[in-house]
């Protein structure tokens, strides 16, 4: 994640907080079978998040389990 990722779902809140990472997270050391894919653009992520927010309803009550 880079600091350019800004998605305006809470316009009343600042969009670039102090906690925002200043560089992309480092890859972990090699793991057995670890795989990775190339990171796509932040714009793509913004668009996807906006779509998901539009599509997903609020959580509905469920029975407890276990």
């Amino acid at each position: 994640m880079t600091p350019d990722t800004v998605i305006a779902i809470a316009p009343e809140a600042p969009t670039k907080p102090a906690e925002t990472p200043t560089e992309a997270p480092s890859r972990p050391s090699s793991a057995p079978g670890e795989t990775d894919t190339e990171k796509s653009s932040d714009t793509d992520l913004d668009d996807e998040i906006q779509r998901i927010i539009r599509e997903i309803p609020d959580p509905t009550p469920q029975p407890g389990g276990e």
Partner: protein
Amino acid sequence: MRRPVGIETEYGLNCEGFSATSPGAPTGPTDGPPGVDFGYECASIVRAVPFPGAFRGWDYRGEDPYQDLRGMRADQLARDPNDLDGPDERSRKLSRDELLANTVLLNGARYYNDHNHPEYCTEATPDLFELVAQDRAGERIVHASETARNEALAREVGPATRVRLLKNNTDYHGRSYGMHENYLCARSTSLDALVRGMTPHLVTRQLYAGAGKVGVETSGAPIAPGFQMSQRADFFEERIGINTTAKRPIFNTRDEPHASSTRYRRLHCIAGDANRSEWATAMKVGTTALVLDLIEDGWTAEFEIADPVKAIKDISRDTTMTATVPMTAGRPMTAVAIQHLILHACRASFAGRDPETDWVLSQWAEALDALGSDPERLATRVDWIIKRSLFVQIGTTGDPRTWGDARLRRLDMAYHMIDPRVSLFETLRKQGRVINLVDQDRLDTCAQTPPAGTRGAIRGALLARFGPQIRKLEWDSVTFDVGSKEWRLDLEDITGPVIDRVIELIDRSPDLSSLVATMKGGSRDA
């Protein structure tokens, strides 16, 4: 790992567009989504699983949730007084078998309706990364049944009525459902040592294994604003106990070994979150298995959290990781400091043992260092940090009031959805923003292939060869119809290289009678 480990996941069930006029819906008011008969929906989802070769049924002889590791038997188990009692007009018309929908898959997994949640149980395996792969394959299996059920709902009711399945542990309305890990342990290990050694780890491992949650829940009360490490921490009320649906304990004492009860017990670990991150699943299990190794080797923790039930919540809600928890002796400690002590003991005993152990130890050390200095380094691996990193940027400065934004709660839920089209986690995975540990191309194979060298491999081979003749099965036995008699193959003592020999026999036998005749040593008439 030195022991077989399995993972059970109860999937959440978000129901949309059901109405009081849906087929079979009751006319009276309910406190859930109108018209949702959860038992019926859950059974329908599981029974819709489109995987060939599945066996329907389960042998409950090996299950006794009332038996307690402390040597007693519970008269009854606690029930949540605030549980959701929805309509049951449709589910009451189902037979017990139809309602429970027990399904055993060719990969050795069990998929069924547990307390009105679709539950997927992997076969237990000592191979950590194979376990992660089997758990991930479960997501695909459950999603396939979700898709099939939604196609049926679209035909029967209309496209606006659908279910969405979640790999998470809360409904955001004060109710939880479980993710349980099962670790086979030596019966000879002292229960006191297990409780003393495991408790500080179970309370603090959420640092890297917490799945994250927008909100703070209390049973029977509306969700409060906030963000915390764990989905589950809000729901633990006791240090130790046999219950799982209410009065949830950090150390669960259910005694169902699913193996020789004289030689083994099974640590039924309920104090953990269902993870989307493969790395987090691996670390949750890998570290816990090492702590068990330590305890079985005689390690006694020299530190004890004074109030674990309070601590598990306090740690979850302190994402700065600076707060300390009181210990029974000495100065209060941070969760990170407690984890460093546990890591130090594991590293001293097990460093260099094998590549898998070394991977867990090195990732553990790296994670604790990052948590103490720059947690964002874990924003591709640790679920709660992946979420927080994203949510902070899109909607909040960390002001607790903004964590009450309903849109953030929806996104939090979307993170856990298993439908790749709407899953926030799958979006991040697709965009290369989270790491994978297992080869994603293998997952479809894992959905139909059991872990090698396990009892599940025997079950899978038997299902593939003699499925129609199986009368019932469970984790450690398979019962067949052979002519007019039943024949029960006991898997309890079949371990190690014997497993491959049994599979070879199954493959070589021209028919079931030949197999029965050959396996005289490990069989008996039922």
